[in-house]
């Protein structure tokens, strides 16, 4: 192979499109996260239900959601479901849904973990001073659980952000997709993918360090509690 001469100008020339792609990446990851929170909350609630059958059902759904690769989920929804049942998801909808299912399975665990992590002594003490069930969860359990849940939620979002890179395979015009078609036109795959990679690393690392800061901040508060 001939020596590849690098031309980083290509990035500059296509910057507007790349940024548009990035915005779509952010949109789809946020939409996915919204689904994830919804699903997560729903299934976590089911797991705390007093009906055993609901526990089991939600448990299995969460288990399956966590076991399926995002890629498979994406194709299953976009090609499988839509063709079979004539539900015409747009590529964006399918991507957000797939991200939401994967993220939701993890979020259900986070919600459950956050709530069970609160020492039973806390609710005992709350009942002992005469608070009712509602007050106990609102005033005692939830505020403490949020300290555990919040940083992990941001971590899940980081995961979704990274996962969102693959939605280009079903044709969502995200940054990777832009990098792909520009490199087909210009034969500059290396520069374009490297640029996309660096942007993603910067993005995920800054969100992840936000989670880290959040965790420190919140745990610092609870230590005095």
């Amino acid at each position: 192979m001939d020596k590849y001469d690098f031309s980083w100008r290509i990035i500059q020339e296509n910057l507007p499109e790349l940024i548009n792609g990035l915005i779509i990446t952010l949109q789809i990851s946020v939409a996915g996260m919204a689904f994830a929170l919804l699903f997560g909350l729903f299934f976590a609630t089911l797991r705390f239900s007093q009906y055993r059958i609901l526990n089991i059902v939600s448990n299995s759904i969460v288990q399956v959601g966590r076991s399926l690769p995002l890629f498979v989920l994406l194709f299953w929804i976009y090609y499988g479901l839509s063709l079979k049942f004539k539900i015409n998801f747009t590529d964006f909808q399918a991507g957000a849904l797939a991200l939401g299912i994967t993220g939701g399975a993890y979020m259900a665990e986070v919600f459950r973990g956050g709530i069970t992590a609160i020492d039973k002594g806390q609710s005992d003490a709350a009942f002992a001073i005469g608070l009712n069930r509602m007050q106990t969860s609102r005033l005692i359990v939830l505020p403490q659980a949020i300290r555990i849940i919040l940083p992990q939620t941001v971590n899940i979002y980081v995961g979704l952000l990274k996962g969102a890179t693959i939605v280009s395979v079903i044709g969502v015009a995200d940054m990777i997709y832009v990098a792909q078609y520009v490199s087909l036109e210009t034969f500059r795959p290396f520069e374009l993918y490297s640029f996309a990679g660096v942007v993603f690393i910067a993005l995920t690392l800054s969100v992840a360090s936000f989670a880290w800061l959040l965790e420190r901040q919140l745990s610092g508060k609870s230590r005095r509690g």
Partner: protein
Amino acid sequence: MDNSVPLFDFAAVWSSRALLLEGFGIAMFCATAAIILAMIIGLFIALMRLSNSRILRAFAFVYTQLFRGVPLYVLVIWVYFGLAIVANINLPKIPAGIITLALLNSGYLSETFRSGILAVSVGQSEAGAAIGLTKRQIKRFIVLPQAFRIVLAPSGNQFVDAIKDTAILSIIGVPELMRMAQQQADLFYRPFEFYTTAGILYFIAVMGVTKLFTFIEKRMSRIGFTNSSQKLTNVGEYI
């Protein structure tokens, strides 16, 4: 349905079973090889991060941040196509896939190992030092065996993620399960059936590995070791 084809037809899947199983085998092979490599690299990186040398620490820090931050999709393209362009290294597909997964997972595992090592209490090293063990002996006989048990469960989770991640290797053409399912789905025009089957196979693999690690853990606690050190869980990072 307006056509006369039955709603669910898994006959095509059945006729392609050999290909799907081969893909499944390749996926499991890639995941296993990658996780073993990742554990070796991860351990070295973790020890570097805990070493006295500032240069080693800095290198290990950048390494973990880099490979934890980069999306797999970008990394696999970079390893397979990028290395060929920049360094003229033309890796075959499967090794390229394994290396990619190993790099990615080594970033996470090194963090897991580091916190596992730190979770072994200082008193343990002190007691080792007090009976005259050298630093190396303390690491080998006291700290690492205890850290190993602490990181077992999170390593199992990492293995599960590696299995799921093999699906992405299809984009560089590794003939693993997802790739096979894609090809057959296009061939028979039965995406729902093929992707459902692929999903079931992934589910079985993931459950199998999860059960295996739970079993090993139980086994270890039965021979007397129940460590009071905190369990490591960071579920969020495993997508």
